[in-house]
């Protein structure tokens, strides 16, 4: 079976059945795409029951996530890029250098192999760029209609010199966001065509480690979070609750693209509750804030980064929004993400 032959095909139940066809599926579609297959003595190419890792010094950090997104291909990315970035970003905002990842595919029978190849290319591109090894994987096929297309589960392993948690924010720390918020959520909303809207907006989905590594090295970062589901509002409320501080946010400083601003007004959806997939929210010691901001804005992924607020002792556990017109209110924890199936 040549790749060409496979690519004209569709996924069948045999691809996940552990037999001959699954072996070829792995040989042709998976293994050649990932040059880096081990992070220790036993890796993906051994096709053993598990991988054996040798980790460099530091504290190991592990994260896991299942990725469901509708549509599977969206402006600015696809489920493969999303799964890979989501995984390495969770490690990055823990302060960990991503080293290895697992990839489990659950695919609906009849799914186009050509589309699957595109998705795998997207995963390969992200892990390749970061030097992350794909050390283990799994493929399962579900019957037609038992699943909507494809679901990807990943586990990421990294090592942190000093883990950065959500609970490290102290009164006085400055809040930085690394770029405009809400792009991913609104790009998906438009792509779903439920509102018959058009926009040039693309998802911000991107791996954050190259942006965060130099900032972490400079020192002074006390807390970090990627504002995915529930967006900026959920991330800030999480930080405030876990760190037991109040956070004041200055609305006029929050970076927003014009498209996002317009869509938010039109649809009555708060841009602060819409997901990002390539942004981080940082707590930084006040004396380090300007330098960290400068390091971040130097990187292309940090374009539009801004200081948007500050932690304080008052209103512990809550986020206060100083609005553009000079009013003040709580920025509440969102009820849930305005959109289901986004990450």
């Amino acid at each position, binding site marked *: 079976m040549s790749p060409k032959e496979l690519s004209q095909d569709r996924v069948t139940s045999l691809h996940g059945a552990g037999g001959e066809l699954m072996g070829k599926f792995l040989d042709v579609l998976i293994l050649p795409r990932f040059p880096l297959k081990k992070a220790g003595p036993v890796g993906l190419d051994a096709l053993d029951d598990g991988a054996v890792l040798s980790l460099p010094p530091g504290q190991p950090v592990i994260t896991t996530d299942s990725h469901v997104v509708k549509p599977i291909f969206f402006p600015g990315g696809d489920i493969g890029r999303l799964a890979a970035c989501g995984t390495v970003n969770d490690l990055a905002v823990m302060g960990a250098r991503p080293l290895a990842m697992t990839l489990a595919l659950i695919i609906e029978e009849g799914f186009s192999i050509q589309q699957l190849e595109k998705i795998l290319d997207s995963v390969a591109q992200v892990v390749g760029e970061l030097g992350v090894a794909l050390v283990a994987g799994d493929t399962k096929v579900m019957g037609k209609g038992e699943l909507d297309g494809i679901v990807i589960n990943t586990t990421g392993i990294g090592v942190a010199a000093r883990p950065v948690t959500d609970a490290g924010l102290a009164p006085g720390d400055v809040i930085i966001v690394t770029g405009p918020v809400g792009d991913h959520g609104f790009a998906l909303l438009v792509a779903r065509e439920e509102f018959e809207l058009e926009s040039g907006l693309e998802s911000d989905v991107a791996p954050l480690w190259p942006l965060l590594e130099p900032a972490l090295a400079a020192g002074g970062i006390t807390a970090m979070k990627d504002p995915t589901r529930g967006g900026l509002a959920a991330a800030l409320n999480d930080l405030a609750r876990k760190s037991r501080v109040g956070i004041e946010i200055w609305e006029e400083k929050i970076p927003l693209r014009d498209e996002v601003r317009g869509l938010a007004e039109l649809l*009555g959806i708060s841009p602060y509750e819409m997901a990002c997939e390539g942004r981080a929210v940082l707590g930084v010691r006040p004396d380090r804030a300007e330098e960290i901001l400068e390091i971040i804005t130097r990187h292309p992924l940090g374009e539009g980064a801004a200081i948007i607020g500050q932690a304080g002792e008052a209103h512990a556990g809550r986020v206060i929004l100083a609005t*553009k*017109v000079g009013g*003040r209110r*709580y920025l509440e924890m969102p*009820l849930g993400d305005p959109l289901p199936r986004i990450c």
Partner: protein
Amino acid sequence: MATSPFEFRDPERAKQLAQAIRRWAPPHPTKIVHVCGTHEITITRHGLRSLLPPQLSVLEGPGCPVCVTSTAELDLAVQLALEGVVVCTFGDMLRVPGSRLSLAEARAQGADVRTVLSPAAAVEVARENPGKEVVFFAVGFETTAPGTAAVLLSSPPDNFSVLAAHKLIPPALEALLGLPGVEVAGFLAPGHVSTIIGVEAYAPLVERFSVPVVVGGFEPLDVLYALALIVRQLSQGRAEAENAYPRAVLPQGNRKAQQLLEKVFYPAGAHWRGIGPIPNSGLAIREEFSAWDASVKFDLEGAPGEEIPPGCRCADILVARAVPTDCSLFGKACTPTSPVGPCMVGSEGACHVWYRYGGKPEL
């Protein structure tokens, strides 16, 4: 002239207006009432209450159309749906509790309940389902009623009819003035409704009760400007109907829409949830359109049901006698995901808006 909505959020202008409001506001506790969910969203989302002097309060009255729809009306819609009629209505209406079931619960039991964005979409449903009876459950104020009138004037199919539960704003304002413990010093009148009825529609109210009524738009500066005009009237001892939203509202309103309403409906008494019966505050369908009047077609008669669940303070909140945080259920037993009363269900309800946008914290 093209204007960006963001010009109406200029912080300098906001500061000047806030200063003017502080200067003109009476020194004693003063309550201004608005009757529009969109006003509540603007006020809460932009934290405008924190710009007002402490003695000046701005409360939402009966401004959320789905919240004030009576259980009697809602129960009829639920009854029709359970009897096999296709019931179409606006999305917010689905989860509002009836005395036994909400429309959403009726749907879960197998009833055909559909959300539509306009009355015309409900007519489409009727055309696509010629073998079924399709009822549009028509809720909303003067803003949405002309749309209902327009479809009734367009010879809809025989299997289409309207369950009319529209309500009128000026009689509700008048009713609030007569309620004990409400004590309204001035009204911020709704911009959308006023585009239809005009500023002149408030003149009789102003004359009879000597209460300032100012029509306001929906950007933060619109609201602050309207509030400033209200307190200026108070400080000068005036009571007038003023227009702070002239870019959308004409003194006489939209005559064409008024004519549509006049042709199809006549004012009739209506029951408001949390308030009770208000004379001439509803719109009944004229006899010549009775073929499409669901209450005639299905011989419906409403029976008053339980309006407000025990412990819930929606009845006080809907008449601006209380704010959401006065209710012991708010944010605890009652949240948008498991609402107890109508004010937490409707996205324009005061409780829902306060829950989403952080209410009126002491900041």
